[in-house]
């Protein structure tokens, strides 16, 4: 695995990964919505970016699709800083269909840094969270929505083991 380090702080999580690819190609994974869709959501809950205005100020709006084909709530990114191909600062959280914040929690900020190494590129993603609730939100944004639906599918398997 390309992950070389993870750091947990009281209010942030940082992951560092090294890829045998140039900085520009790693940057494209964030900049190109069709590429972004292929890695942001897990295969079972693919993300669909309905908008990806990769500018400051700009917004991305996406939803995920459960294995049953149900769409999750919308979530959005607000771009705070974009400095291609090395720096990205994004606020993200649940949103309405237009990308305006929705729900009670504030948004979380994450930053991405991409730097060249001898063998390729090092990417550092640092995601801040203010509280356990924020962390839950981040997980929700990642994949927890639709999770109950997924569990329903496993009923038959579980029944065998019960």
């Amino acid at each position, binding site marked *: *695995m*390309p*992950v070389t380090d*993870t750091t*947990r702080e009281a209010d942030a*999580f940082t*992951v560092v*990964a090294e*890829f*045998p*690819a140039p900085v520009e*190609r*790693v940057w494209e*994974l964030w900049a*190109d919505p*069709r*590429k972004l869709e*292929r*890695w*942001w959501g*897990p*295969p*079972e809950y693919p993300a669909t970016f309905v908008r990806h205005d990769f500018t400051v100020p700009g917004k991305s709006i996406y939803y995920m699709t459960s294995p049953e084909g149900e769409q999750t709530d919308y979530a959005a990114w607000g771009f705070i800083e974009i400095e291609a191909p090395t720096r990205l600062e994004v606020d993200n959280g649940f949103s309405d269909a237009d990308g305006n914040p929705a729900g009670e929690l504030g948004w979380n900020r994450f930053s991405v840094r991409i730097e060249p190494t001898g063998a390729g590129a090092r*990417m550092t*993603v640092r*995601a801040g969270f203010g509280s*356990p609730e924020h*962390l*839950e939100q*981040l*997980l929700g944004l*990642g*994949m*927890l929505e639709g*999770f*109950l639906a*997924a*569990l*329903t599918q*496993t*009923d038959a398997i*579980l*029944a065998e*083991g*019960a």
Partner: protein
Amino acid sequence: MVGWGVMCNQMVANVDAGAEVEAEIGAEIDRIFHALADRTRRDIVRRVIEREQNVTDLAGRYAMSFAAVQKHVAVLERSGLVVKRRQGREQVVGPVVDTIGRVRRLLDEYETLWRGRIGRMDAILGEAEGAQTER
């Protein structure tokens, strides 16, 4: 939230994480999966996570006896997903609040989530340049 965390971990583990994540799941996941194999119990957990519920109100929501609902709550309680406490004459069911454990577990999940993402990024980068960029 503990239960969700473990299950989520399990799910992610199946997708892309390695043995390390799976190893820490163990017996707990079996208990939790068993507890959540039932639709009513899943519904109870969902409600309780939203906010604490008193047992009488909870029982009123399902087409089954008070005793049956109590039994479901007991199974959830044994699995560590919910906790019951007395409030005056009422029994109130709430999520297990173990903030430290919860944050740790949430961070585990979050780490797993990012490891999955980075694994997928790596796979895309490994493709021949120019390939797969069209839908």
